[in-house]
């Protein structure tokens, strides 16, 4: 219990004192236990009063302070700062809200308002009597960030973090960097191609001595918390030595007898077991796909740098923050969905882009020239029956861009867009306008009546009830049907499971708050970037990558983190580990430890957010939340009754 509490009751220039008799409140509380001085003030928040409070606290050695004024949302922090300036620990300050919840709410009942104000101030005094000085939980932070995924978002974030002054580990599961953008040629709103963008970013990554790139690398174990995460990384070998001779490598690729579908080209082409995705790929060193390699030894005969003795390595990294930029998968249509997998000239948009890449003057697919192209939008997005209710955001623009590119690049191209309402938002609108001017045909249906693709003899027909022409039944004979497949979350995303990153309804990573904290997760120290958080185009991914880099950097930059000390506390004697608190905790802040020959729960103060969800579930009442202990809450209740 305290002996020297100072109480300040604010008039708020009449906002309070017009309805609450502040002098009566002062008299009613001045003899409460522990109260040393009780004053009224015209404006508690005014500089002059703040100065007076600082003098009182310092000169009178006050050990607790209550200000009864407006809502704590406005001035709790102001007055905590006042007590700190006076040398009193700020947790000995309690705020009483007698404006929003008293004088204004009860301006129709002055005696009632005054009585309520008295009780509220008394309850604040009761609370401050039981409050304790607290120090922030200090955690040292390792000045290094792990960036998971070396697509364009991950690379951009890594460059930014290194430029800002952090050590960066860029961890890529594939043998090559660039992610999905490496699979793109021409890009919208830019003269750049996907490959040149990847090259530019890769060059910058390699230039930075503070970025270490690991390819073929995957995080397999994690521990620790914000400031100090430990990652165990598995790095699989390429089976090819560095500094190899280029022509020998090409020879090695040539002699390899194994042919497997090339995933980089969405299986429309084949590749060898020793491969790279495209000639100038980064890193410019091929890899051996050991799963498909028959170990026939042909490559070793023509190339001295093949080394099958390379072993899988395990690294332990320590970082202060983790930035996830694990990207997306293109939606894979089900067999039979708009004829996919059954009708041979039905392909996906990513495949179409690769088909364009491999065509020269004429657009060719499976040996036939393509002239009439039907694009079916929203495949795997905005599903009526399926799980994916969301819009994939980038595909309308990407499709129109591809259609316009096809028209510019090849002769005799006719585009038919079977859409559900074109969403070329913002400046992308001009592209839609351009395609319409170039004669592209747009046909639209609603969600409930999608177009139908069918085979009639050797012809592929797309049918639609077009709402743009008074619901006419229209048919188009197409040489190629392109299914505009949306973005879906990465199927294989083990790191998310290891770190328990929360996912949204759409199964993409979930941010804490779309507007307040769009790149942070509820797990302190873990940020999310790019399409791992939801569909985005390249520019939007970059913005989110740069934002995430800033957040991760500010975590590791100071070298030390100060966390709120208002966390859960275990009564060791009363705790009989039952695990209910662990189940209730949304942050996994509890661990089971041994204590005096029994098992009890322990709170990790750096993880606990002080929500208190664990409090009511404890059967033995062995958990208290600092600032909301039973004594504090019950004494407040006693004062209010």
């Amino acid at each position: 219990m305290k002996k020297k509490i100072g109480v300040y009751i604010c008039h708020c220039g009449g906002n309070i004192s017009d309805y609450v008799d502040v002098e009566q409140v002062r008299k009613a509380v001045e003899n409460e236990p522990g109260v040393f001085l009780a004053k009224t003030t015209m404006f508690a928040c005014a500089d002059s009063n703040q100065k007076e409070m600082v003098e009182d606290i310092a000169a009178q050695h006050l050990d607790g302070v209550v200000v009864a004024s407006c809502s704590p949302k406005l001035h709790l922090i102001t007055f905590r700062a006042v007590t700190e300036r006076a040398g009193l620990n700020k947790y000995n300050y309690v705020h009483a809200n007698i404006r929003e919840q008293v004088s204004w709410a009860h301006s129709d009942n002055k005696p009632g308002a005054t009585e309520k104000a008295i009780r509220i101030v008394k309850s604040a005094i009761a609370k401050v009597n039981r409050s304790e000085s607290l120090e922030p939980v200090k955690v040292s932070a390792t000045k290094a960030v792990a960036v998971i995924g070396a697509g364009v978002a991950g690379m951009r974030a890594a460059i930014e973090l290194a430029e800002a002054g952090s050590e960066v580990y860029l961890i890529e599961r594939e043998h090559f960097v660039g992610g999905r953008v490496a699979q793109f040629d021409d890009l919208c709103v830019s003269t750049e191609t996907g490959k040149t963008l990847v090259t530019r970013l890769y060059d910058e990554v390699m230039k930075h001595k503070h970025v270490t790139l690991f390819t073929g690398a995957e995080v397999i174990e994690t521990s620790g918390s914000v400031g100090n995460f430990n990652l165990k990384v598995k790095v699989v070998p390429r089976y090819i030595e560095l500094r190899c001779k280029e022509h020998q490598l090409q020879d090695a690729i040539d002699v390899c007898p194994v042919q497997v579908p090339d995933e980089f080209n969405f299986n429309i082409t084949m590749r060898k077991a020793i491969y790279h995705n495209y000639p100038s790929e980064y890193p410019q060193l091929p890899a051996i796909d050991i799963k498909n390699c028959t170990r026939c030894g042909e490559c070793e005969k023509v190339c001295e740098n093949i080394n099958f003795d390379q072993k899988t390595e395990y690294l332990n990294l320590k970082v202060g923050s983790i930035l996830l930029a694990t990207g997306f998968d293109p939606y894979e249509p089900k067999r039979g969905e708009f004829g996919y997998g059954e009708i041979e000239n039905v392909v996906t948009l990513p495949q179409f882009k690769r088909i364009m890449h491999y065509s020269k003057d004429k657009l060719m697919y499976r040996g036939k020239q393509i002239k009439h192209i039907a694009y079916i939008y929203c495949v795997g997005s905005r599903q009526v029956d399926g799980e994916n209710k969301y819009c994939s955001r980038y595909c309308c623009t990407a499709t129109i861009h591809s259609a316009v590119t096809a028209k510019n690049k090849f002769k005799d191209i006719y585009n038919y867009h079977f859409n559900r309402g074109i969403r070329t938002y913002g400046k992308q609108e001009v592209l839609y306008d351009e395609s319409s001017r170039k004669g592209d045909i747009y046909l639209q249906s609603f969600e409930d009546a999608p177009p139908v693709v069918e085979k009639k003899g050797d012809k592929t027909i797309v049918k639609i009830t077009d709402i743009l022409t008074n619901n006419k039944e229209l048919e188009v004979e197409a040489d190629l049907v392109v299914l505009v497949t949306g973005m879906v979350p990465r199927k294989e995303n083990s790191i998310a499971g290891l770190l328990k990153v929360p996912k949204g309804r759409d199964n993409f990573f979930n941010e804490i708050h779309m507007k307040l904290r769009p790149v942070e997760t509820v797990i302190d120290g873990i940020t999310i970037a790019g399409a791992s958080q939801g569909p985005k185009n390249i520019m939007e991914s970059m913005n989110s990558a740069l934002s995430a880099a800033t957040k991760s950097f500010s975590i590791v930059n100071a070298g030390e983190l100060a966390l709120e000390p208002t966390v859960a506390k275990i009564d060791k004697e009363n705790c009989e580990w039952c695990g209910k608190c662990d189940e209730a905790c949304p942050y996994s802040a509890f661990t089971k430890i041994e204590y005096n020959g029994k098992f009890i729960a322990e709170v990790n103060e750096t993880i606990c957010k002080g929500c208190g969800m664990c409090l009511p579930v404890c059967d033995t009442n062995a958990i208290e939340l600092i600032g909301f202990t039973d004594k504090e809450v019950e004494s407040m209740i006693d004062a209010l009754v």
Partner: protein
Amino acid sequence: MEAGKVNNSPKILVFSTEKISDPAIDMAGLLKLHYPPTVYTIPVPCSSAVKPKWILHALEQGFDGVFIAADGTDCPYGESCTEKTAQVMTATQQLMKDKGIDPARLKMAAICSVCSEPFVKHVKSFTEYLKKPSN
């Protein structure tokens, strides 16, 4: 006499939440939406942090009713809040029954950060309920 009016009105303790429902209660004041001054608020971080023990303490010490102004789905600590707050409700009402306290003296509703009007409606109708002589 107005003071008499104050004393006759049932006392309600509201557990509000610092980030969601307490701002709504603040805004009720800002908008001068009046409600009985016998409604008192203790803000906590999250509505699923309210211990049944606290509720029983309030009812036993003389509060006529306890109202949990829950975060609902807006809870900054995650979506499980709704379910967990409901569990607190159920558990407490069971304890109340065991002690012979009318379980309807505990009420809960989700109050979003701008739900000032719903808040006032809730506490007014709760007050009316508690006023009935049988309660």
